[in-house]
């Protein structure tokens, strides 16, 4: 499959994910739309021939952030209306689409042929940059991570 096709497919999914997030009355639906858009973005990265970022996108956004959001929704679920995230045909189908698309993207990553018109991203080059030119940024990021973890705990902790 050419990268242009992959791009258009991913673009349509990302846009539809975005609109679902925007218009869904259901918070969980919004989250599912977001999840779909995240996965689609991974596809876009792939079409830009940078498989590492696509993988990172799935791991970080779809894996961590989206799950975190769903967790938060469950914690503060206001009207106790939604027992579990997957409720109703629309949300269910959205979840199924995301999952299927994720699998597809993962397959694409594994079988990445580098046939696109832009040169294949050299992941080792990116890795080398991280420990040479951008070493300071990485260190600063680690500090930011630690601080944000601690502050998140501090803020969310119940006063007792």
């Amino acid at each position, binding site marked *: 499959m050419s990268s242009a096709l992959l791009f258009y497919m991913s673009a349509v999914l990302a846009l539809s994910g975005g*609109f679902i*997030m925007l218009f869904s009355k259901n918070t969980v639906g919004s989250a599912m739309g977001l999840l779909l*858009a995240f996965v689609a*973005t991974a596809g*876009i990265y792939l079409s830009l021939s940078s498989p590492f970022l696509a993988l990172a996108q799935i791991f970080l956004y779809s894996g961590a952030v989206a799950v975190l959001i769903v967790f938060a*929704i469950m914690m503060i679920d206001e009207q106790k209306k939604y027992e579990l995230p997957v409720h109703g045909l629309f949300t269910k189908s959205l979840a199924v689409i995301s999952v299927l698309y994720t699998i597809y993207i993962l397959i694409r990553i594994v079988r990445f042929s580098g046939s696109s018109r832009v040169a294949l991203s050299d992941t080792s080059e990116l890795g080398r940059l991280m420990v040479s030119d951008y070493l300071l940024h990485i260190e600063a990021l680690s500090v930011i991570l630690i601080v944000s973890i601690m502050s998140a705990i501090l803020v969310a902790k119940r006063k007792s």
Partner: protein
Amino acid sequence: MIYQYIVLSLILFFIGLITVIVRRNLIVVLMGIEFMLNAAGIMFVTYSRFYNNYSGEFITLVIMLIAACEMAIGLSVVVAMFRIFGSVKSNDIRELRN
């Protein structure tokens, strides 16, 4: 081909922006913010790949990490707010004004 990417990125960005503006649920607002960051990431990677410069990709990676941190703190704030105000609608939470 680069134009399609840029246009997509912009459209996604504005979808996120409109989400932030029109939705009242703070969790969805946070989602919109994530969405905007994502769109920015696409823009970075696009330029990075088309001009073969790794800085863009690196910055996208940084954006992912920052977004994760932001999400963690933002959600914890929302949870704390829910405990205090009993609501996560931004209209309900205008304590400073009163």
